């Protein structure tokens, strides 16, 4: 299992999800992406996206205006 970091600081939605989607396609099942974003809209978007795409949101934390999400790729 590997973790890839994806820094989307300064990007507005929909870009963090588009980049996340692209990044998840390039890793294997069970691998993780650590996404960093600054758009508050990303909280709702990442949750909804992981729910609907069969990936798993392992961790979600906020530090001031910086949001960090750890997503594990599903087996689909």
């Amino acid at each position, binding site marked *: 299992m590997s973790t890839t970091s994806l820094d989307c600081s300064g990007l*507005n*939605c*929909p870009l963090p*999800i588009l980049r996340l989607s692209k990044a998840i396609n390039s890793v294997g099942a069970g691998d993780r992406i650590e996404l960093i974003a600054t758009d508050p809209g990303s909280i709702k978007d990442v949750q909804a996206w992981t729910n*609907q795409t069969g990936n798993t949101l392992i961790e979600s934390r906020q530090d001031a205006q910086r949001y960090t999400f750890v997503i594990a790729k599903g087996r689909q």
Partner: protein
Amino acid sequence: MTKSVRHKLSAAERRSLIVHKAIELFAQQGFRATRVKDIAERVGTSDALVFQHFPTKRDLYDAILDELCARRHFTEVEQLLYYAPEYDVEDVLQRLSTWVMEQTEAEPAWLRLTLYAALEQDDGAADLIDEHFQRIIDYVAYEVAEGQHSGKFKAGDARLLARDFFAGLLGLSVMRTVARDPRYRLDPPRAAATVHVATFLRGIRTHEGESGNEV
């Protein structure tokens, strides 16, 4: 004794009313010409109460931005982008452009605020408009850069091209909604958006990226 049926506004309702009345006034007469006193009168309250909700003009701008924010209405396009991995860029740009035109026709205040911000060179107002439009320009720049990377689009400054795309769309909306020029209103938003997107893509597609669709 007869009970009063007058509804006393909650703080949230009053705040929302102030924002709506401020949008109306800013769109009618510009940012500079609109005083807090005018907004208070339109709401039927005092200057002090408006200041209580919005201590600075910037706070009011931010609230207006929230109200007009693209995110609230961007859902259909985002859903397509998020959950249709093989989405067609031309289709997405058409939906996005249709959305911009429909929104500006449904809420003409949106464009009028943009024009006043430009005319008055008001930094706060310009920031408001920047934030409002930036999301769309950023997205278009992303797609242009992706297309360039895959060889479908010609090389060039992706952000500049995205701004050109958006400026054309905005100009079209101004002629349709603010100028209300009938020559720009012959087609419904969807048809006008289709032509705008096709023209833009024709200009940046490489031979490899040509779809063969002619408009």
